[in-house]
């Protein structure tokens, strides 16, 4: 069925509105990172000075050059200006600009998170749908127990145990160190996602290698979010099944598959989608733990390394990146909701 209404203006307006609504949150995050920078133990100028023996004058000079003696507000505006030009500062540990480091490492994190999300959806949606359909049965109880078990295993414990079982014990998983064997030729970078890049290059050895490395960390992360996704799916399906319009559909003699897919799943998908947004941000948090365990060269482990060595520019950059990613993901979900639910697009 085609829509008679023009599609774009309302869509664009909606994107604009959503981005506008996200701005205050983004501003709060920027303010937070700025304050964080300012209350840091130690003086950034001291770090940047030529050495531990740098004279007082040199440090003073540096402070002036870095604008650290200016009033707070001026410093903040300066900071905003830097952000606007994409300048996130320089990492002390890698010696590169933070923006460059992020650019190098973000695909690794994204590949991991997206694969984990795909895993968890593949497991959760069928589980939730079936356990709602047979709610109250033994099967439903088992699913519930499985979810409880998954939810209470911290990702850092499940990760270590998975490595122990599949790598040290059974020997079926590869060495949990990084994304791909460094001795193999890397596929040319297109998207930065190894699975896609190696597939594009037709290099299936690399693809298998990368996929093998990806399975355990992705599974670790997926296990952590299976419980909320399954429960949400189950609850949403149950509440839709109890709705009047499902009763109407049954009273009108619609085939069961149509009731199940077109009437139930379609309507249940909306609350599930909202949960996916929350789950995605939980995963971004859990990234830190999983990347540490699997020595995954992503942005989270980069930020963590920097954090441990009191190198704060990468941490700031990381938090801002997370905030932007989060806003983006929520925008996408919101637009999808608008597509799925005609009632949303009206207001």
């Amino acid at each position, binding site marked *: 069925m085609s829509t008679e209404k023009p599609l774009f203006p309302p869509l664009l307006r909606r994107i604009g509105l959503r981005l506008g609504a996200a701005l205050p949150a983004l501003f709060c995050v920027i303010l937070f990172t700025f304050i964080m920078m300012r209350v840091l133990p130690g003086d950034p100028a001291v770090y940047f000075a030529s050495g531990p023996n740098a004279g007082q004058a040199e440090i003073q000079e540096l402070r002036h050059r870095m604008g650290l003696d200016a009033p707070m507000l001026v410093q903040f505006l300066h900071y905003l200006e830097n952000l606007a030009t994409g300048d996130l500062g320089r990492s002390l540990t890698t010696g590169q600009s933070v923006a460059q480091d992020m650019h190098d490492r973000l695909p690794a994190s994204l590949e991991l998170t997206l694969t984990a999300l795909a895993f968890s959806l593949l497991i959760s949606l069928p589980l939730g749908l079936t356990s709602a359909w047979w709610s109250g049965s033994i099967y439903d109880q088992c699913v519930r127990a499985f979810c409880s078990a998954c939810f209470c295993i911290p990702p850092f*414990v499940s990760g270590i145990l998975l490595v122990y079982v599949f790598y040290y014990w059974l020997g079926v998983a590869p060495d949990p160190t990084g994304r791909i064997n460094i001795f193999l030729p890397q596929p040319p970078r297109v998207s930065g996602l190894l699975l896609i890049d190696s597939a594009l290059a037709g290099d299936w050895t690399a693809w298998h290698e990368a996929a093998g490395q990806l399975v355990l960390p992705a599974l670790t992360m997926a296990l952590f979010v299976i419980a909320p996704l399954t429960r949400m799916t189950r609850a949403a399906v149950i509440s839709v099944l109890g709705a009047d319009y499902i009763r109407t559909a049954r009273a009108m003699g619609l085939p069961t598959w149509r009731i199940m897919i077109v009437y139930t799943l379609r309507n249940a998908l909306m609350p599930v989608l909202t949960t996916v947004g929350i789950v995605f941000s939980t995963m971004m948090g859990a990234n*830190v733990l999983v990347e540490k365990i699997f020595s995954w060269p992503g942005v989270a482990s980069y930020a963590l390394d920097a954090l441990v060595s009191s190198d704060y520019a990468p941490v700031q950059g990381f938090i801002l990146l997370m905030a932007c990613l989060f806003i983006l993901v929520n925008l996408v979900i919101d637009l999808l909701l608008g597509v799925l639910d005609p009632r949303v697009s009206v207001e």
Partner: protein
Amino acid sequence: MTMTDFMTRFRRPDIGRFVRRQPVAALAFAGLSAIVLLALLAPLISPYDPLASDVPHALLPPDRLHWFGTDELGRDVFSRILAAARLDLSIAVSAVAISLVAGVTVGCFCGYQGGWLDRVTGRIVDVLTAFPLFVMAMALVAVLGNSIANLIYATAIINFPFYIRIARSEVAARRNLGWVEAAHVSGTSPTRVVLMFLLPNILPTIVVQASLNLGWAILNAAGLSFLGLGIPVPTPEWGVMVANGAHFMSSGRWWLVVFPGGMLMVTILCFNLLGDGLRDLLDPRTRS
């Protein structure tokens, strides 16, 4: 009088009925009680000093002397787990208490007042609950400095928006109900309406949320300390113990991860199951 009324109402589902209706939650409650008891009695019952190293007996597998084995410095894992239980539970309880009190206060106020303040708070809270707060907490501990107090604050901040949201929506949902309007007509002051009418009615929901959140708070605190944040070095803590043990997994010393990790799991599981059971019990739709 209201409070005692409320307490009797709340206690009315007697223990026998609770066990029959929610056997799993009752079991979880028993498990939690055992863990709390162990944590309280830790100094009395732990066989070794959790901090005393005994290098000749390092990395021993579980046996009769060391039930859960020993770590790389020869410290008894069982004693350390008991001491850690004390720490982890108190971190979780204090963090949840802080965020609960602060969140419910803000949430009740906003939910009852309504207006632009409420809308702004609502929007901010919606954004915050979906934000990767763990990352924020990480940075916070790193900046404020490695201490248990800062770990508690960071964990509390992670939970804070959830309490605002739940209190706000619960109060807002009831603000225009008949019995609240009736209270106004009866000449009840707004403060009294919130404290004596709304708060007792939303408290069960908050209690359920708190029970579920305790598990989550332990998970977050352990996660932070796993990363080396918040807990100073020799102090035993489950997350730290798992992090240390991870180095020895490659040589097959599974007990260094499995026991503290298992304790984490069991504790979180108990809190979650108890919360679920309480929710089912208090949900009027499942009440007969």
